[in-house]
């Protein structure tokens, strides 16, 4: 009796520690020639959305693949910069999605993904509404949804801006190095031209230039 009670307490504590997690948004680094897979256990009938965007690196593209518990590929795209895929889970089990940078030899990429499973948890976990929402409450709910989409747009905007900014910073350093390099090349080439030309004429001490004829 006490044993099962203790186990139950531990389970409930773990539940509290973990909480309801129904959406994951992560940004991670994908080194060159690497593949990173993520897994999630999904219950049948849940509507899920996978959205990803490449933030920095190379041509800003990555391979993405989503598989259901039986290994059937639900979504597969090569060298995509940004995409969004919605599906309804037709089976119970572990769904797997992978990002691959195996086609790239030396650029490592930063990838952002957002995997939403089902709906957000309700504000009151033990909510069992008997009455419908009042007007105020439903207004609050719609404002909440609108603000969520505002934040979603903000995230995408931030990622695009990060992309643009990293390109601009790359350009800045490239311009600096290239200018210095080109100035050095110019000087070296012009000096060596003169030195080379001089060397054509300095050996001929005995031979005078053929004048005329």
């Amino acid at each position, binding site marked *: 009796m006490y044993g*099962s009670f203790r186990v139950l307490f531990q389970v409930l504590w773990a539940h509290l520690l973990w909480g309801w997690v129904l959406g994951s948004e992560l940004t991670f680094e994908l080194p060159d020639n690497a593949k990173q897979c993520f897994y999630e256990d999904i219950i049948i009938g849940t509507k899920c959305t996978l959205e990803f965007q490449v933030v920095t690196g190379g041509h800003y593209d990555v391979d993405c693949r989503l598989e259901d518990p039986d290994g059937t590929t639900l979504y597969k795209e090569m060298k995509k910069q940004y995409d969004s895929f919605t599906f309804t889970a037709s089976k119970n089990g572990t769904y797997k999605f992978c990002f691959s940078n195996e086609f790239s030899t030396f650029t490592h990429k930063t990838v952002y993904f957002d995997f939403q499973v089902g709906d957000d948890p309700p504000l009151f976990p033990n909510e069992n509404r008997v009455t419908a929402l009042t007007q105020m409450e439903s207004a609050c709910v719609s404002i909440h949804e609108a603000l969520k989409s505002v934040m979603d747009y903000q995230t995408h905007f931030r990622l695009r801006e990060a992309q643009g900014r990293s390109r601009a910073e790359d*350009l800045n350093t490239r311009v600096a190095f290239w200018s210095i390099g080109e100035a050095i090349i110019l000087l070296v080439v012009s000096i060596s031209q003169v030195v080379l030309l001089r060397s054509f004429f300095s050996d001929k001490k005995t031979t005078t230039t053929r004048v005329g004829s």
Partner: protein
Amino acid sequence: MMLSVPAAGVLLLLAWIHPGDGLYFHIGETEKKCFIEEIPDETMVIGKYRTQLWDKQTSSFLPSTPGLGMHVEIKDPDTKIILSRQYGSDGRFTFTSHTPGEHQICLHSNSTKMALFAGGKLRVHLDIQVGEHTNNYPEIAAKDKLTELQLRVRQLLDQVEQIQKEQNYQRYREERFRMTSESTNQRVLWWSIAQTLILIVTGIWQMKHLKSFFEAKKLV
């Protein structure tokens, strides 16, 4: 008061199959996995993880393994370490950003029993919540004794505050972007002028030098 065994069993089963376990991935023994969170300042981030070790005997992942630990290291945008701690097989870490920018959260396993790792697979469940997602609304409602409507409005207020912070951060980033673009513009302008000057000067120098050289050689 005493829960009957079947009821406890049902609850246990429900807890086991509940979908709240979230996203997980596999990590190797010495592998370090890093995640980036680009956040405005004064934003709270809570990360929770749970590890499971592959058991060769049962060919499945053990529910929890004592002695297994994860080292969590968090760096701020200036690559200064703001958190570097060892946690157990289940852990919860939290930090608040003081500078806006890219914070890096790195995890690597620091298992005390190396033999356990012979299979090579460690499953890590990870959940990182940022900003107003870190708020535990039922707790806030209980603490401040809020009605449902008040709680909803509080949630909206938190969301709007987060949006405001993000907009502020956006303004700061756009300023940095503009400075970088203007610096590139300046650099391109000055270096073009400088290179044209170098070209002209070296051309003139070459002609003069060769002319005096040929005159010395009595060729001209």
